[in-house]
């Protein structure tokens, strides 16, 4: 166990000497996909609640597709599937994008988390208090100002507990990245396992690292909720 740690602590945490690996890689995958997913999901969630069908339906279809299929298949399609198409390989721009495992992985992860986040945010928008929106309209706010100043700040706050869940699920989902040759924590654990045959210890270390990240994220989100959801707490 000690030798295993001595030999592998560096790759487990940040680098194997050539590439960024382990914890650093997992955190990078997580933050990149969560960041892209968050940015894209805001306009999509507004479109998702649009009264116009031709705006609402494409978004609905997108979330239906990505929430109804496993992330592993989505990653496989992005990483091996698309690149197996001749049309993609012939196009220089697409070729260089999809040849890189990192691009494919982040693309698949971002698309996946964006679908879930869109549903969370649109649910929060739909559960807006009618009075609040009517008051804002009565004050003359309309169009994007209504969304920017009243609806989105409130909806984003109220979706915080669900959003924290999604972030943790995404952390757990990043483990499939090793199938696309990305050296994340699990990839290092598998390498350690196949080199030393210490199965329980190798995967156990990975489990402890993931557990630590999960608890840290839960703690951070609890702090965020105390700050931004204070208005939902008991009156003082």
């Amino acid at each position, binding site marked *: 166990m000690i030798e295993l740690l001595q030999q592998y602590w560096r790759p487990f945490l940040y680098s194997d000497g050539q590439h960024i690996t382990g914890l650093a890689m997992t955190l990078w995958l997580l933050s990149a996909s969560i960041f892209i997913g968050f940015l894209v999901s805001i306009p999509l969630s507004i479109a998702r609640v649009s009264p116009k069908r031709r705006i609402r339906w494409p978004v609905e279809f997108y979330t239906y597709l990505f929430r109804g299929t496993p992330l592993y298949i989505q990653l496989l399609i992005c990483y091996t599937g698309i690149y197996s198409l001749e049309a993609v390989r012939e196009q220089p721009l697409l070729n260089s994008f999809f040849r890189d495992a990192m691009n494919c992985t982040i693309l698949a992860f971002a698309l996946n988390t964006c679908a879930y986040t869109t549903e969370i945010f649109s649910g929060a928008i739909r559960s807006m208090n009618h009075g609040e929106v009517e008051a804002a309209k009565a004050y003359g706010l309309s169009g994007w100002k209504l969304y920017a100043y009243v609806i989105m700040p409130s909806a984003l706050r109220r979706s915080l507990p669900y959003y924290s869940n999604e972030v943790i699920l995404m952390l757990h989902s990043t483990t499939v990245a090793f199938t696309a040759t990305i050296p994340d924590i699990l990839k290092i654990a598998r390498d350690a396992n196949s080199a030393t045959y210490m199965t329980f210890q190798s995967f156990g270390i990975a489990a402890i690292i*993931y557990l630590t990240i999960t608890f840290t994220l839960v703690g951070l989100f609890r702090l965020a909720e105390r700050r931004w959801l204070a208005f939902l707490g008991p009156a003082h």
Partner: protein
Amino acid sequence: MFDNLLQILGLSAFSLKGFGPILLQGTWMTVQLSILSLLVSVLLGLLGASAKLSSFSLLRIPAQLYTTLIRGVPDLVLMLLIFYSLQTWLSTLTDAMDWDYIEIDPFAAGVITLGFIYGAYFTETFRGAILAVPRGQLEAATAYGLTRAQRFRFVTFPQMMRFALPGIGNNWMVILKATALVSIIGLADLVKAAQDAGKSTYQLFYFLVLAALIYLLITSASNYVLRWLERRYAAGAREAVR
């Protein structure tokens, strides 16, 4: 026959190239694995929830540990950990007891592993649902002289199901999608079948998309069943809105 039909329709690009039976077998494997894991995890969830709500700390603390640890670690990590360790542990046990070598069947190991992982999620679902049943109901049942088993069977269970169903549905979808990962530990499920078919015909994209569509079909069908169940278990519940 199917391929001939496609040829007549001019759709031979969509032919399964003879991989239809393998894909079907893979799909069946995925469905079997999901349903059996669901059963194991529901059972563990009910046990876990009772342990967590028990007044004995000897039961409560292990159950608490189980749900926190399992839910904090990614399912794939646990899957690899348990799947590979299970055999080692069993071999150590058989060696120590001087028994014959027992080899675990990968399918059984997959079911046990998935069931054990999602049992933790079900524990939380059922715990919340049991707590949502009004106390007065249980007190009334006790006052009528129902035994503990009767109280659970006739009072707690039918009422908690209504609160548990959305959670059960959610967990079912997660289990179904998690079974896609078993191909990583070497089970011949739908993903594996699609990958094999795609690699040998050089049409990986087509077969992967096909596998995704099959998953979509299963999730859509389960959505439909779940909505029906929710209506059924909501019988007698009044809703203020709508």
